[in-house]
């Protein structure tokens, strides 16, 4: 069998059940991205005889005698197609993992209107952009046919920050270059797959691996008997690791459906999968529990606002093993607990004119980063364990692997190529551990890539929570007391839970002036998939409770909900009271008045505006605010090394991780600004434990705020160094020297090129390294307003318009900031309306596919207006603050409040599916 692949005759030789996507990747077509492998996401789109198909559901053998085009074959004679150029021009990507499929799909869309484009993208999912930049790119392609895109690159000496520079990896993204983890591997690669538990809770009595080991092509089978028994946490945190150490490479016990039982290493994924099916396991089934309130037993009664729990229940204990540690209360399945307090809530509630107390239910939801967890491990000639991984935390991963296998840290190298999204789920070390173990045992390269089903069932979710919130207020709208209790489902392992529940209480409570506040959060083990880090990190859940209750309170007090917030929200004059002993959050700048003005104007909102009613259709407006810190003060360390190279270009080595957001570009903008150069003159080596200095990683909205300040420090130090060297070479005082572009020029006219300077100085001398850890973490604020339409007959909610204002200090790269905002809103839209992991009584996840777990499609997303409020923050680099997470938090409460405005219904459970809205409406009619 033969086909014509990108103009070249190619023989098709593969197993008969192979999908075209796999075969194309085996041919080196790295642009064919495997994401859902079910024909839902479009990331593997290719053309067969000129027609777009999902290659993951197209039999490879059917390609015989056909003409195939992948993104690698789209450019003709080296000229990018109009659609590729349009995607570059409008930056229709963030992580870029969906981009090849988007471009090949978009090239075939016949459209008249924006709505046509959005409908035609039904078979293409993007989790980063919120689709807005993609739709604009597709529209732009028409007008780009005969002109080349204008690229706005400032010259040296012009401002490099505050400018929407294109992401520097854009050309590689739109041409489908092999830039992601799975796109390269050393020769002789073996593949790891694991057998996962079918039971929610069981002891493994016996494992018979003989049949699996005997299968041709199987190289090793590992069970708990073969691995070191050493407790650890998958959470990627810096030392001292605060999280429960309750995880083992492979354990004698399984604690959720999907837990690891045994690992197979084989010559192909197919053989490894087949071998897994041949492993015989004898289980002793243990009682299991899926409900955190039940799992806590009597301890549930201790929570002041959950006093109505039945006493006397004896739950199954998940972590009774003696070797695990840092578990808050293993006998009662409490993995973590946080108590915060300021003032005395009893006094505060006694002073209140109005008290509202409500319970909220938040579901577990999944990140759905397009690129799955994947890593490749091998030993270099000198025996260094090398790990190429799609991780947000290479340095934490290095530390964990060194500890697990008793290796010196410098004998472990972890690095990441481009990431196809993470959203927190790659702040977990989920695949590197077993893969590294296999390489250490076998001495050979091993790769482990998760399937989409594994992403849904065996990684992490956002924490499902029940939140009880009680707020007391005076008639005029001042808050007298707030009390919140949150019970989070940690799932089977503790990882991030205690840190997550901290933010659940501290951010929503800290957002408002209130002298008496109390919070108790508990994370509880159950026999479900673990919950972990996810954009917003617990704040998202707490904000939903707080912002919907504040809205309800405003209605109760007959106050405008925005005016109430405006008066009570903290500002630069306030101190962040709650949890101040542990974290160092500070209000460096706050631009609420401007935010309110922008958002209300965009939506045409007037205080006390009535909803619009047309038959069974009702339209209403709703708002929500939130805040999120920029990184973690004191403990989040970033280091940057900057050099002038012999060729006169700069080299920047930074441990910082670009998850796809564009931080590799923005960090260089900061350096370029200070060095009087341009981003294109700075060669970047990033996030490699061997090649770059330490950086804690990409999480907690930290990269720009913390790695950005390390960059700023390093750039200033290098500039000083260059000026000092030039000063002695030219014999001119430093104060009379200017560094612009590739030249240092003195006031007297003499000058020196950077190349000459590098020639005359020892290169090592022209290198600086600077570290930064923030004393304080500055808070970013956001306000979102939405208009919704509710169909009372079906309960369906459509979001018609969204306007978000973010007070971000300074936008280093406005377009990248807008991309974070739009992407965050749309992720929040899914959380609000359609996303929830559902499980049956055994804890088996019922909807582990994108067809049954619905993330927003382009056609569901309304026009999004984003306003960046720039009010320089004294604590950030050039006044900038973090923006990675906050955009997600406001969507669900704003939509709930808009539904309340439209219908009077107060929905306190997410997602607000048509059925839930309709059921609520039935209850009041």
């Amino acid at each position: 069998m033969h086909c014509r692949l990108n103009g070249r005759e190619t023989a098709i030789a593969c197993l008969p059940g192979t999908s075209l996507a796999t075969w194309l990747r085996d041919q080196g077509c790295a642009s064919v991205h495997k994401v859902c492998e079910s024909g839902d996401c479009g990331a593997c789109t290719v053309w067969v005889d000129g027609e777009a198909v999902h290659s993951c559901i197209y039999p490879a053998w059917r390609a015989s005698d056909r003409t195939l085009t992948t993104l690698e074959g789209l450019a003709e004679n080296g000229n990018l197609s109009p659609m590729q150029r349009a995607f570059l021009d409008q930056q229709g990507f963030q992580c870029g993992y969906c981009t090849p499929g988007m471009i090949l799909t978009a090239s075939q869309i016949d459209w008249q209107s924006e709505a046509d484009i959005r409908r035609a993208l039904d078979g293409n999912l993007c989790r980063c952009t919120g689709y807005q930049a993609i739709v604009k790119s597709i529209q732009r392609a028409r007008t780009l046919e005969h002109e080349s895109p204008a690229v706005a690159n400032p010259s040296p000496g012009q401002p490099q920050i505050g400018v929407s520079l294109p992401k520097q990896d854009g050309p590689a993204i739109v041409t489908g270059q092999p830039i992601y983890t799975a796109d390269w591997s050393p020769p002789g690669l073996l593949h790891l797959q694991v057998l996962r538990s079918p039971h929610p809770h069981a002891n493994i009595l016996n494992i018979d691996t003989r049949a699996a080991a005997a299968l041709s092509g199987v190289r090793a089978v590992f069970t708990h008997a073969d691995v070191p028994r050493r407790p650890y946490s998958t959470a990627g945190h810096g030392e001292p690791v605060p999280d429960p150490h309750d995880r083992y490479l492979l354990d004698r016990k399984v604690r959720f459906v999907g837990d690891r039982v045994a690992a197979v290493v084989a010559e192909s994924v197919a053989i490894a999968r087949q071998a897994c099916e041949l492993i015989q396991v004898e289980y002793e089934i243990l009682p299991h529990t899926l409900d955190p309130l039940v799992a806590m037993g009597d301890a549930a009664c201790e929570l002041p606002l959950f006093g109505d729990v039945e006493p006397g229940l004896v739950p199954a204990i998940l972590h009774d093993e003696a070797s695990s540690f840092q578990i808050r209360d293993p006998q009662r399945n409490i993995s973590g607990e946080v108590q915060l307090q300021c003032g005395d809530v009893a006094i505060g509630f006694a002073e209140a004119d109005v008290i509202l107390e409500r319970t909220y239910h938040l579901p577990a939801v999944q990140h759905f980063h397009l690129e799955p967890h994947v890593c490749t491990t091998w030993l270099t000639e000198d025996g260094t364990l090398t790990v190429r991984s799609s991780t947000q935390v290479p340095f934490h991963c290095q530390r964990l692997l060194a500890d697990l296998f008793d290796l010196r840290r410098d004998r472990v190298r972890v690095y990441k190529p481009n990431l196809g999204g993470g959203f927190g789920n790659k702040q977990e070390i989920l695949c590197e551990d077993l893969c590294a173990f296999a390489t250490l045992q076998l001495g050979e390269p091993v790769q482990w890539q998760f399937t989409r089903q594994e992403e849904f069932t065996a990684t992490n979710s956002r924490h499902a929570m029940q939140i009880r919130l009680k707020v007391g207020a005076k008639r005029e709208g001042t808050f007298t007391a707030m009390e919140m209790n949150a019970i989070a489902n940690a799932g089977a392992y503790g990882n991030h839970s205690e840190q997550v529940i901290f933010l659940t209480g501290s951010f929503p409570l800290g957002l408002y002036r209130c002298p008496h506040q109390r919070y108790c959060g508990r994370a509880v083990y159950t026999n479900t998939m673990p919950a972990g880090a996810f954009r917003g990190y617990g704040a998202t859940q707490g904000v939903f409770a707080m912002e919907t209750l504040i809205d309800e309170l405003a209605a109760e007090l007959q106050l405008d909900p925005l005016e109430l917030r405006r008066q009570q929200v903290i500002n630069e004059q306030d101190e962040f009271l709650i949890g101040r002993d542990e974290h160092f959050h500070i209000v460096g700048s706050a631009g609420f008045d401007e935010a309110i003005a922008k958002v209300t104007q965009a939506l045409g909102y007037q205080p006390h505006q009535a909803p619009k009613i047309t038959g069974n259709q009702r339209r209403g407006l709703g708002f929500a605010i939130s805040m999120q810190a920029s990184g973690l003060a004191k403990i989040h360390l970033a280091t940057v090394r900057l050099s002038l190279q012999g060729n006169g270009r700069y080299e920047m080595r930074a441990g910082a991780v670009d998850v796809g957001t564009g931080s590799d570009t923005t960090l260089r903008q900061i350096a370029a600004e200070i060095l009087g150069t341009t981003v294109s003159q700075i060669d970047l080596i990033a996030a490699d434990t061997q090649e770059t200095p330490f950086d804690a990683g990409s999480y907690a909205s930290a990269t720009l705020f913390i790695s950005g300040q390390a960059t700023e420090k390093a750039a200033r130090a290098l500039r000083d160094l260059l000026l000092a060297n030039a000063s002695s070479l030219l014999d001119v005082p430093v104060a009379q020297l200017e560094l612009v572009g590739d030249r240092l020029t003195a006031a007297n006219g003499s000058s020196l090129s950077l190349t000459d300077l590098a020639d005359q100085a020892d290169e090592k001398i022209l290198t600086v390294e600077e570290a930064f850890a923030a004393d304080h973490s500055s808070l970013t604020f956001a306000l979102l307003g939405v208009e919704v339409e509710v169909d009372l007959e079906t309960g369906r909610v459509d979001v018609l318009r969204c306007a978000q204002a973010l007070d971000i200090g300074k936008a280093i790269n406005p377009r990248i900031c807008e991309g974070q905002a739009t992407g965050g809103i749309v992720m929040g839209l899914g959380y609000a309306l359609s996303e929830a992991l559902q499980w049956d009584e055994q804890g088996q996840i019922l909807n582990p596919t994108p067809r049954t777990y619905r993330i927003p499609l382009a056609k569901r997303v309304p026009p999004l207006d984003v306003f960046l409020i720039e009010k320089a923050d004294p604590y950030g680099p050039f006044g900038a603050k973090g923006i990675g997470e906050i955009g997600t938090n406001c969507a669900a409460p704003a939509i709930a409040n808009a539904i309340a405005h439209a219908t009077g219904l107060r929905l306190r459970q997410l997602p607000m599916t048509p059925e839930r809205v309709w059921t609520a409406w039935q209850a009041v009619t």
Partner: protein
Amino acid sequence: MDLHSIETYLRPTDWAELTAWQPDWAWLAGGTWLFSEPQPQVRTLVDLQALGWSELAIAADGLTIGATCTMRQLLQADYPAVWLGIEALRNAVRELASFKIHNEATIAGNLCLALPAGTFAPALVALDARYEVWPHGGEPYWLPASAFQLGARQTVLQPGDLLRRIHVPAAALAWQTSYQRLCVATAGIALAIAVAAYHPATQTVRLVAGASFPQPRQWEFFAPLCREQITTALAALPLTDFIADAAASAVYRRQVLGVLLVRSLSDLGLLSEFEPISIHS
């Protein structure tokens, strides 16, 4: 996705070649569903594509759709202007996934899959379609669309049987139709599908429901109808007849099915606010 258990890929060019059938064989039409889930029980794929059965024949007596006719073919063909009913079939295509799926997926494959939320079954029932089945080792026979699907993922087909073609009579294609569908999100697996077909000459209204039940259900009325007739017809069914699963309850499915049925009637201008005149089923 890769189907790791497949050992053999057969591509017959003549039906006569297929004399044997094994329990671990599967027909491969568009492949868009087969390759979307693990198929651990299947060892052999029998690709239908080389049999030349992709016909979409437009004739005086109606429309014939071959076993491997794709959704795109159906969507893009030119039909006689009087075939108003084609719109129901076109909507069945549009409501099912992206245009890239239409390029490969087959109508017959969608029917054989027999998902309760299948988009074609209710439209074809509404249009009086008949299916030709080629049983393994037996004589071909025709049956009405309404008799084909027996339940969720269950049809009259026995292992090795094949749905060879679909015929939609010209008379039914002249009916006016309306197609309504609702999902939890903007797209995905439907919770309810309502197809209304109206024959002005006889004033007959046929209503077909999909996605709410394991297989399509139909009612016939005389136009015009009022809202209460729909409510009454649905209330007459035991609630246990409606699907209840993680996506939605039976009560909600009944509600939205009623709403969609009413909207389909309204769409055709058949909804009256008057009392019901008569019902026959």
